[in-house]
């Protein structure tokens, strides 16, 4: 790993917080990259991951927005651009919203970031190599009317971004995170979303990286009393697309709605992991994970609902549906429950199979061809993820998804 290590060490030595970064780098070296004998990495094509292809990006470049990104921006109240983890300076403002770049890897969960993420090699790597933390804060009692778009561009061969969204008490905002670029790159975003008492975050993360990218993302929602997090994660790009989306419901009344979806084609691997951790009573989580695998792609969904002793009257639901669009595609579904309290409602369901035959027949009975019916239904997976968005933004993303699906090859297994 000499080339990558040299570029990492040279990057670290130039940064103001070099000491903390060196500690993270040492920790990464000590644990090394994961292997497929680690259960949580079992499905990743790690043997194809050659770190020597990557070089740490030392200075921000000027990203060129795709047409789609430009349209997205035109529908938003504020655009935040992050290029390879560097926050692009901007004069743009939006009432009640503050955006800045902070040195140092911290966590909003308390304690040190290194302790919190020590078992996750890629998160540790992010701590050593992300240029800074992009912090977006919404002030108390502010209801931000217009959506905020965060454009993440991966232009170099490696792209480490770190983001903290913090919503003050009784505030609300809609945020769209969009990832593009990343040809042949390692893209490692690490995000935390802290939602204050009675605040509401509606979040859509749309990942449209190049199909050669390695994308290893991890997000954590931290929900305080009566906080609401509606999060949708859409994964399209990446050779390997890993998305770990956790939520911690820290105080009573918190509500987490998580929807994740992906479309696998070619030889892609989509690896979705979720962990809804109910630490307080009267909290609620609803998780819907739906994905489709075509061609020779593979997917795995692993979800854990954890309920702490004493978190009474918790309501946690987890649903995972996987569609097989080709006889050579494969999907695994691994739901898990860890419940240490009796007075709870908890349910999980999962399925792997072809499209619903009766829904398809209903569409065909309107005169829709089988191929179009299937395409509509698959597109529907993605459209369902966008219900928290304002309609003009949702339509924009729907159109983009539709164009991506147009080239999809569906073969009944």
């Amino acid at each position, binding site marked *: 790993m000499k080339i990558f290590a040299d570029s990492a060490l040279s990057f670290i030595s130039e940064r103001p917080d070099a000491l903390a970064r060196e500690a993270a780098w040492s920790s990464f070296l000590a644990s090394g990259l994961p292997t497929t004998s680690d259960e949580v990495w079992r499905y990743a094509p790690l043997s194809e991951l050659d770190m020597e292809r990557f070089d740490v990006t030392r200075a921000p470049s000027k990203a060129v927005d795709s047409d789609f990104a430009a349209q997205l921006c035109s529908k938003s109240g504020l655009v935040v651009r992050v290029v390879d983890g560097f926050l692009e300076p901007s004069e743009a403002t939006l009432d009640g919203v503050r955006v800045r770049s902070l040195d140092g890897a911290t966590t909003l969960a308390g304690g040190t970031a290194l302790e919190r993420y020590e078992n996750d090699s890629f998160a540790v790597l992010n701590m050593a190599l992300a240029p800074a933390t992009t912090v977006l804060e919404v002030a108390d009692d502010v209801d931000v009317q217009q959506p905020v778009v965060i454009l993440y561009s991966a232009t170099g061969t490696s792209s480490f971004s770190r983001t903290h969204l913090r919503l003050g008490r009784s505030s609300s905002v809609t945020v769209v995170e969009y990832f593009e670029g990343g040809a042949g790159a390692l893209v490692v975003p690490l995000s935390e979303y802290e939602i204050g008492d009675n605040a509401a975050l509606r979040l859509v993360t749309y990942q449209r990286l190049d199909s050669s990218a390695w994308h290893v993302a991890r997000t954590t929602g931290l929900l305080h009393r009566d906080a609401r997090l509606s999060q949708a994660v859409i994964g399209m790009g990446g050779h390997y697309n890993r998305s770990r989306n956790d939520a911690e419901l820290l105080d009573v009344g918190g509500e987490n709605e998580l929807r994740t979806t992906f479309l696998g084609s070619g030889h892609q691997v989509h690896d979705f992991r979720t962990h809804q951790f109910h630490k307080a009573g009267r909290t609620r989580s609803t998780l819907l994970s739906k994905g489709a695998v075509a061609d020779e792609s593979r997917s795995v969904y692993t979800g854990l609902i954890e309920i702490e002793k004493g978190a009474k009257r918790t309501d946690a639901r987890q649903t995972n549906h996987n569609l097989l669009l080709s006889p050579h595609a494969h999907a695994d579904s691994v739901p898990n429950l860890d419940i240490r309290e009796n007075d709870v409602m908890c349910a999980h369901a999962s399925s792997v199979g072809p499209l619903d035959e009766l829904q398809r*027949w209903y569409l*065909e009975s309107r*005169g*829709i061809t089988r191929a179009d019916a299937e395409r509509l239904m698959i597109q*529907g997976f993605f459209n369902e993820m966008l219900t928290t968005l304002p309609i003009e933004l949702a339509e924009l993303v729907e159109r983009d998804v539709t164009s991506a699906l147009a080239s999809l090859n569906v073969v009944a297994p």
Partner: protein
Amino acid sequence: MTSTLRIEGLRVEVAGKEVLKGFDLTMKSGEVHVIMGPNGSGKSTLAHALSGHPGYKVLGGSVTLDGMELLTLSATERARAGLLLALQQPMEIPGVRPIDLLVAAGADPTDLRRRMSDEAYKVELRSDVLDRFVNVDLSGGERKRAEMVQLGILRPKFAILDEIDSGLDVDALGAVARRLAAATSEWNCGVLAITHFRRLLQELTPTMIHVVTDGKVVATGGPELSEILERDGYEPFRPAHS
């Protein structure tokens, strides 16, 4: 142009059991035919078999539209030939919008959203319901009105209505029946309505009523048949009495 839908000797099996046992019916465009019968008589089976539902197996017989055999066609081809089934419980299609469904079904996209609103107005359906996903979170009445919107846009030669009146309140029933009655003159649509209830017939005057028991038509007649049914029920029509 007048079209003819002809069902002859239709036999259909559901879950290994023969439910339709030689069903015959002929109708022309612009006519309203009503099929009445007790539970389990095969009424719904007819509707589903005509539209090619995967759970229904045709054992024999023939269904032609202007001489073209429909039973060998796919569900898509039957719809494109001019048959539209409105369901008792229209299915939810999460993530799919009605306008996208209609475009895929071959509707002219020009000005489509406005035409959908016009159709919604005719059946007293709030137009914003048409921006939601197909039938998702709609009440029973809204779903059936939404089916009428599809009908008004797709303008089939023959509309088959499977108990579209069940679960409808009087207002909704009236709106649906008036829409169907209008369709018979607007584009000469033939209506084949399957029902338990006479209420539908108050707004939608039938050309012909067919009484079905045990998988066959056992009596055919004018509106006077429904009065007999109202008075005596299906008992006089049971095979044992015939």
